């Protein structure tokens, strides 16, 4: 491994090496591909479409809430807008984003494999996602849905006359996409690691994907069954959830949160994996407490299944159930805290670069810290009785899901963009956008904590006047946030046209993904790599030629 390029040359075709992007240009070569990298790119595009759509809905919500009266949208439309914002963001962006895009692209490369264990199933899961997504979009065009993304009964089964069934079907189908992806990742991690790639040499991103996959295959079937039961009740009037028919509406909440609490970990764990990569690599330091970070992911995945009742503290469940769920929630908070401390400690004595991905990672730390800490507020029963179902909850989960997941995703996209496309984006604009996102985000969501404590309930199209000032701040922040999010679209796409060539390893990092060309060849490596170094070792034992790289970097910065 003296020469970084020695293990990664693709097949020669004339002068140019063939990489996964240039290996076939027909539409068919994309739609029928078995290459995990192409599938990842197709996911990237699809997920971005949903993200933009969800973002437009978010914009509408914030505009409506600029004034106390429901003037821009009347309540009926507002209810549909926030529901569709939630459904799209949760099921079609947050859940698939990091696993299906970054995980798909990188997991095989990071463990030194040619592809995932089941490439065809991988393609199938993309098609399932498309079918589920299209159905949902179709439902939105027909008139949409107004139940909230939580589909609480009996409103969703008996009272709402919006397109609950169609959206439910879309979400149901989409669930199978998660299950298949999870299955694929687990099998791949178990069976396809390159020689020398022991479990404790796996990058933490892979551990995080693995933990996420566990949750996906254990949890998603439950939400599938729940939606199925909902459909049965709606169509056949069998009493399952509706008390008028002899059912129990609280049962729905139990089933829904039994999936959806773990689902919040499906959303955050992959992002935590990205952050581990970013902080370690951009500090050029071995991650602090590797085992603790790895096992805390698994602990979160397992214990995450025991705390669903903390979403139901005021639903009428017994006081004692409430106490038990509160206790368990406090316990689950600890592994997240451990991660934060380890990330911080990783920076100690590092050589920290201020490149865009690292800025996103620092942003993540700040926002996730607030998100996690306010999770403690919500886990403390006596307090949550007051703030549940208010803007406090809205702020909390945006701090974790936007501050956590979206920032992790954006950080990851910036970090691996040179690998995925072979191009460098504008570092200047990257930093600007990272900072705009951070500032805009805080301006949008911090006031909502205060609003929540003051008692402003969530899902309100109109609100009392005393809440207006803080809502104006929030809407102003959302505009800044919006600009911060639109910028990357522009300069990343721009980089495809006029970006500088990235070279295989622009930051001289030890991970396997950096030891193949950018973009990688179809089978990732020319020869199967043999791993002889520990994860995150930046020294000589990693086989990186630091002297050489340094000499070259003084000649041309991105050689």
């Amino acid at each position, binding site marked *: 491994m003296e020469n970084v390029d020695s293990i990664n040359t693709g097949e020669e075709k004339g002068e140019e090496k063939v990489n996964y992007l240039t290996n076939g240009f027909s539409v068919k070569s994309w739609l029928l591909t078995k290459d995990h990298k192409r599938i990842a790119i197709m996911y990237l595009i699809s997920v971005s479409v949903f993200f933009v759509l969800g973002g437009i809905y978010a914009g509408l919500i914030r505009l409506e809430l600029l004034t106390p009266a429901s003037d821009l949208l009347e309540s009926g439309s507002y209810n549909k807008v926030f529901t569709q914002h939630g459904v799209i963001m949760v099921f079609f962006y947050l859940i698939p984003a990091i696993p299906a895009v970054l995980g798909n692209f990188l997991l095989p490369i990071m463990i030194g494999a040619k592809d995932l264990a089941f490439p065809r199933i991988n393609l199938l899961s993309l098609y399932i996602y498309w079918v589920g997504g299209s159905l949902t979009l179709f439902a939105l065009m027909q008139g949409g849905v107004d139940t909230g993304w939580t589909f609480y009964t009996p409103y969703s089964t008996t009272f709402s006359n919006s397109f609950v069934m169609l959206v439910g079907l879309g979400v149901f189908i989409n669930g199978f996409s998660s299950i298949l992806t999870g299955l694929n990742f687990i099998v791949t991690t178990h069976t396809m690691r390159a020689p020398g790639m022991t479990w404790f040499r796996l990058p933490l991103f892979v551990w995080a994907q693995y933990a996420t996959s566990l949750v996906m295959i254990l949890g998603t079937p439950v939400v599938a069954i729940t939606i199925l039961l909902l459909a049965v009740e709606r169509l056949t009037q069998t009493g399952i959830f509706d008390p008028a028919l002899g059912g129990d509406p609280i049962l729905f909440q139990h089933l829904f949160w039994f999936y959806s609490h773990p689902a919040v970990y499906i959303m955050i764990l992959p992002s935590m994996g990205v952050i581990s990569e970013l902080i370690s690599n951009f500090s050029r330091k071995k991650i602090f407490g590797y085992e603790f970070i790895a096992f805390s992911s698994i602990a979160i995945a397992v214990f995450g299944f025991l705390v669903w009742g903390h979403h139901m503290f005021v639903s009428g469940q017994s006081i004692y159930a409430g106490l038990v769920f509160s206790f368990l929630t406090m316990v689950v908070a600890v592994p997240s805290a451990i991660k934060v401390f380890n990330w911080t400690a990783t920076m100690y004595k590092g050589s*920290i670069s201020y490149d865009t991905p690292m800025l996103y990672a620092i942003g993540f730390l700040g926002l996730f810290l607030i998100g996690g800490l306010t999770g403690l507020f919500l886990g403390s029963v006596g307090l949550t009785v007051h703030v549940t179902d208010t803007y406090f909850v809205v702020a909390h989960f945006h701090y974790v899901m936007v501050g956590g997941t979206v920032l992790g995703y954006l950080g990851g996209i910036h970090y691996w963009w040179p690998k995925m496309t072979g191009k460098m984006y504008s570092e200047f604009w990257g930093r600007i956008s990272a900072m705009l996102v951070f500032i805009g985000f805080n301006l949008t969501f911090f006031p909502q904590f205060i609003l929540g404590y003051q008692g402003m309930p969530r899902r309100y199209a109109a609100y009392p006047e005393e809440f207006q000032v803080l809502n104006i701040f929030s809407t102003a922040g959302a505009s800044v946030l919006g600009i911060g999010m639109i910028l990357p679209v522009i300069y990343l796409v721009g980089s495809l046209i006029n970006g500088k060539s990235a070279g295989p390893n622009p930051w001289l990092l030890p991970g396997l993904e950096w030891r193949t060309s950018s973009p990688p060849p179809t089978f990732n490596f020319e020869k199967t790599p043999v791993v002889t170094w520990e994860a995150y070792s930046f020294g000589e034992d990693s086989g990186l030629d630091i002297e050489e790289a340094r000499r070259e970097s003084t000649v041309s910065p991105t050689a």
Partner: protein
Amino acid sequence: MQDTSWVPLFPEGASSFAWEVDALYFYLIAVSAFFAIIVVAAVFYFFIKYREREKFATPPEIHGSIPLELFWSFVPFVISMTIFLGGAIVYYNQYKIPEDTMEIFVVGKQWMWKVQHGTGQREINELHVPVGRKVKLTMTTEDVLHDFYIPAFRTKADVVPGRYTSLWFEATKPGKYRLFCAEYCGLNHSGMGGWVYVMEQRDFDNWLAGNLSNQTPVQQGQDLFTNKLGCASCHAGGQNQRGAILEGIFGKEVKLVGGQTVIADEEYIRNSILNPAGQVVEGYQPIMPTFKGQVTEEQLVALVAYIKSLSGQSGTTAAPMTPATDGTTAAPANTAGAGK
């Protein structure tokens, strides 16, 4: 109790446990600030102190430290347990219904709150209560989930179709406070709110007197029981009656066919009326017909109140202390500015 009126952007608290919730909140803010400052300071310090000084440097490898890991697992764990305990105590105070409450019935309905006092007064989207009295709300809904939320009292509870949930508070300050529906319930969810008026006892009595109603829930229930629904034909025949004896059962154990026992609470009585075959009392034939679909939630509330009264549980302790002299007394001049 403590005064929080000086804290900017802080909502008024007006119930006996509001200060406990606020105290918990301040404790959590303190804990959060403590951790946030440590982490943010460390991140910034490292970020600046250890910034990249030379390209592709290889700083020293540090694998980790078990003592440190144990330390920062243990400390957050202990602190999180204090948060749990604090929350548990406050929660218990919020949700454990005390004895000797004044009971008020609340029925949610898309998109309004219907309130009925023990003395029969009804209100819509308003709730008048006396200051310094423990008030218990027994709540249900005619359609979907709702949630009865009074931010100033720092409490709320979902209202669930098909069952009773309850909420209690003791207001500490006369005034006018917002009432919200906090559980999404469809089209006009954000319009489903109103005001809670907390009044001095005297003003409250005047208010009750000025809003005299014809029937208390107990009377109304009695009327339904004997005349309108014909329960009496089975339940009021003395020793030979075909139906179970209802006198004195409230709050007691009832033996069911099959050997189980249940406590006869509001929920049980409600179920006995809607689904008698579900829980049959030992020693009786399951002949009682179901009344599902024939009684409204409000009538059910009245029936329950009546059956409770047969056990000496009136649930109507709110009888005016100063008897209404005549029905035409001028509107009460209460300090709260209750608009009526």
